[in-house]
């Protein structure tokens, strides 16, 4: 089953958070982005480390599809299609009626389920505990990985400069 459009995906999440304030929406965008990109082993380890596994009902069982990733040159140019990306999504509702959405890259259903549960818990009273136990360590680990990679790349950086250009001499 194909997840049809990136636009549709965003519209759904916006409908969901429509009643909330702009700041709440911004914060949710932050953790949704984090969960979408989180490495599977780390996310599942942190989730099982959190301990609680609230009971829930599926609104949409995990399904894998492709979404078109669009980009803009410099963030402002005309949009172009960068390429398709495999995405697994699901939606669930906790016993108190809170809805959680999970959209993660790749085809792991367990990861989508964990992401949706974390999204749901972040809208409940457990938000600060979840942030401490899962989101903060996750953000930190992902930032460290990114910096390591950037540092490795930076070590091989070469600065080209010329004191006297050949054709001038």
């Amino acid at each position: 089953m194909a997840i049809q459009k990136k636009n549709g995906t965003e519209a759904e999440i916006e409908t969901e958070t429509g009643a909330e304030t702009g700041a709440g929406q911004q914060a949710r965008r932050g953790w949704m982005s984090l969960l979408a990109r989180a490495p599977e082993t780390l996310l599942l380890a942190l989730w099982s480390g959190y301990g609680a596994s609230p009971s829930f009902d599926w609104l949409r069982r995990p399904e894998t599809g492709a979404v078109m990733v669009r980009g803009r040159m410099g963030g402002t140019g005309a949009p172009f299609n960068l390429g398709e990306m495999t995405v697994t999504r699901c939606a669930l509702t906790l016993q108190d009626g809170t809805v959680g959405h999970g959209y993660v890259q790749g085809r792991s259903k367990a990861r989508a389920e964990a992401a949706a549960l974390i999204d749901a818990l972040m809208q409940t009273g457990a938000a600060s505990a979840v942030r401490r136990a899962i989101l903060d360590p996750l953000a930190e680990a992902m930032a460290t990985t990114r910096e390591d990679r950037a540092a490795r790349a930076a070590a091989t950086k070469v600065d080209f400069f010329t004191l006297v250009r050949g054709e001038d001499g």
Partner: protein
Amino acid sequence: MSVSLNRAYGGGFADPAVDSARAFRAAMNVMAKPGEIRDLDSAQPPAPLSAAAGTLLLTLCDPETGVYLAGACDTPELRGWLAFHTGAPVVAAAEADFAVGTWAELMPLDPYRIGTSEYPDRSATLIVEMDALEQAGATLRGPGIKDSATLSLPDAAALAGNAMLYPLGLDFFFTCGGKVAALPRSTAISEG
């Protein structure tokens, strides 16, 4: 966040691939054999939509089909439910590919698209919510019907007028609870 909004997302297909294939087969069969009534109740949409109408919307709609919610059907719960499960945009009657509501709410028939001579398929399909659905009333004749069939129609005269437009015109599904019947534009209608 209100609980009612969250409940509005429930009631989709339990097994989307199988349920939608079954529902599509039922929808295709009733359209192919006007007058036939089949069960169609694998989805539970928010009120006031019937199970059959909700199942049809989940089966037939996607982000490229405009849906017109007529009268009492146009609730925030139903809009949210439709957006979550199908991604279909809610549009005005004149742009709709599908329209859903009771017969009185869907009236008049004039604004709906009836297709063009080059593309008669670019027409609307109306999902009419009925209080009762039975094989009695107006007599139907035409493709898919051996001799004749009968079906309880909301307004036989208006539907006969639609059949006169053939090959243009509207197609109809009639839903009542978990039952569905259909009337394509190709069927000739005569009063009971």
